[in-house]
């Protein structure tokens, strides 16, 4: 394919995308239609860019080295109260997550009168690579928290991966500012930055 043909193909692709956006917004609220008309030039640049969409394996989305895991799980009767109470007492301390070393963040949200848990996290690599390690290294941390979920088979169960998968919902979109920065790399760069500052302070 010549460069000219590629350029024409690309222009066709963007034009088609714009046509579909217009179609989607044909019956949008007036404020949205006006915004689309005014903002179309900016939107074109994103529509023209190459896809950033990747899969994190069997389920979930990924950008670069960072993947997302989102799940909504029904809770045992009384489970919502226990989780809320436990999270409250922990006051944001998650040593287990520090140990795991691949978790960028974790979000716990109780929904529908504490009958469901929304659990969302951003993590490095493959979601199931270290499940076996959890079993021998931090089984209690996992079971204390997740025993409140209806049907939790226990972290030692051979069907644990299937259970986790069955509650996971792939995000419809996933954005990561620094897709190549893992937790380990971020910590390393923090150390390098501090050491460099110390060095510059000494010679400066």
């Amino acid at each position, binding site marked *: 394919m010549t460069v000219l043909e590629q350029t024409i193909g690309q222009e066709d692709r963007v034009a088609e995308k714009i046509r579909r956006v217009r179609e989607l917004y044909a019956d949008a609220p007036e404020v949205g239609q006006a915004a689309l008309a005014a903002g179309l030039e900016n939107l074109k640049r994103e529509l023209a860019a190459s896809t950033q969409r990747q899969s994190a394996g069997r389920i979930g989305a990924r950008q670069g080295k960072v993947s997302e895991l989102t799940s909504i799980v029904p809770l045992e009767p009384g489970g919502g109260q226990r989780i809320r109470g436990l999270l409250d007492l922990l006051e944001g301390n998650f040593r287990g997550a520090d140990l795991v070393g691949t978790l960028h963040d974790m979000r716990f949200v109780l929904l529908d009168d504490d009958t469901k848990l929304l659990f969302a996290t951003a993590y490095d*690599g493959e979601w199931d*690579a270290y499940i076996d390690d*959890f*079993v*021998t*290294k931090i089984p209690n941390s996992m079971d204390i928290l997740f025993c409140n979920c209806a049907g939790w088979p226990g972290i*030692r169960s051979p069907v644990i991966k299937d259970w986790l998968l069955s509650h996971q919902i792939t995000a419809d979109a996933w954005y990561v500012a620094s897709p190549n920065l893992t937790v*380990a*790399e971020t910590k390393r760069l923090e150390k390098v930055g501090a050491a460099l500052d110390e060095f510059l302070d000494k010679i400066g």
Partner: protein
Amino acid sequence: MSLDEATESDAAARAPMLDLGDIQATVLRLRPAPYYGSHVLLRVDNPQAGRALLARLVPHVDSAANWWDPAAAWLSVGLTYEGLEAVGVPQDSLASFPEAFRVGMAARAPQLRDVGVNDPENWEPIYGKGQIHVGLSAFSDTEEKWARVMDVARSAYEGLSRVDVLAVQPFGAQPGDRNSLGYKDGIDQPPIEGSGVGPLPGQGRPIKAGEFVLGYPGEAGAPLPMPQPDVLGRNGAFVGFRKYQSLVGAFNRFLRANAATEEERELLAAKLVGRWRSGAPLALAPETDDPALGADPRRNNDFAYQDDPRGLRIPLGAHIRRMNPRDTPLSRLTDVNLHRLIRRGTTYGLPYDPDAVSEADDEAPRGAIFLFISAKAMATMEFLQQEWINDGDFIGAGSERDPIIGRQEPGATFTIPRTPVRRRIHGIETFNVLRGGEYLFMPSLSALNWLANLTG
């Protein structure tokens, strides 16, 4: 000195708990030194013929009984998923095998990071197409016994219609027992609880047998999921068969480009692996090679990393430190004992030549075929390929990869910690290219009998 004399004599630790008489010899028996042998890959196009083949083989497949005795010669057999299908294993039994085994190594290429130059599209044509059904391996300590075992093997697989030989790959016997990049290898094997032999110094505590052989408790307490029926799964193990070609020219060019003298080249070669060519570990011989140390199984693996946290002796990214980080603090929650594999490395082709520097030398057939063995070999290989071989994050080395078996991207680096500042070598290349691979199941002797007596 035999292995038996070399190990701890604590009787309790040595009492075998495994059913050694039912487990195939290759699972536990160490490669002899020197060694001679062949891998034979077969295709079976008729269930009766496949079962006849197994029936002929069974009396000659050796068990792991007394595996610690100095080895003479032995034969082992494994079947791929398609091989199990081909001999008529019932559907519900086939479905009880792990998914990665069922779809095969080539289909798991994304999980194994077998992409680019290692992509199955670039493999030798017999691999990854579902046509390899049975794999035989003959090991022996002399050329003469090798010939005898091969006669036995041939009398089993020859003369059966609908059983075809796809490849016969001889291996072994390099000068000084070195591999195709010039190193003594196969030193650090995982110690297995209840195998009848205590750990060698430095091997660490014995790992639960169920991690390596099906039907026994694993590290988490319970046995790992096992193919059904019981007689088929128990005492069996999975095998990752991987054929690598060593790019000796590229390897030597790298050493020459980054080291001025022969001494410096040898030190650089040792930093890549963590051991000198003799097998002597840099942990115990940091300045110069010590062949006597390398040759001594009681000393050549007797070290830990606690007094070398920065990798000043054995770089954090060195091959042996990646493949068994021992007590190295890792940036990810890891139970090192869950990610070990038994390795039977078999070197084939031309011996290593330190003066081979041309691109033509990269083309010469020369390398290693590995059998990676465990009760969950597929999952462990995927973990290793993703985490410890083709990444560096777990040791704080960013995206650096294993210098020996990693697949390097253009501009890849290898870091050698030093004081006051580290040395970072740019432009490390892929030195071992994957030429093919298959997952096999290495059944117990009773399971081989069961398979040979299937009907239908």
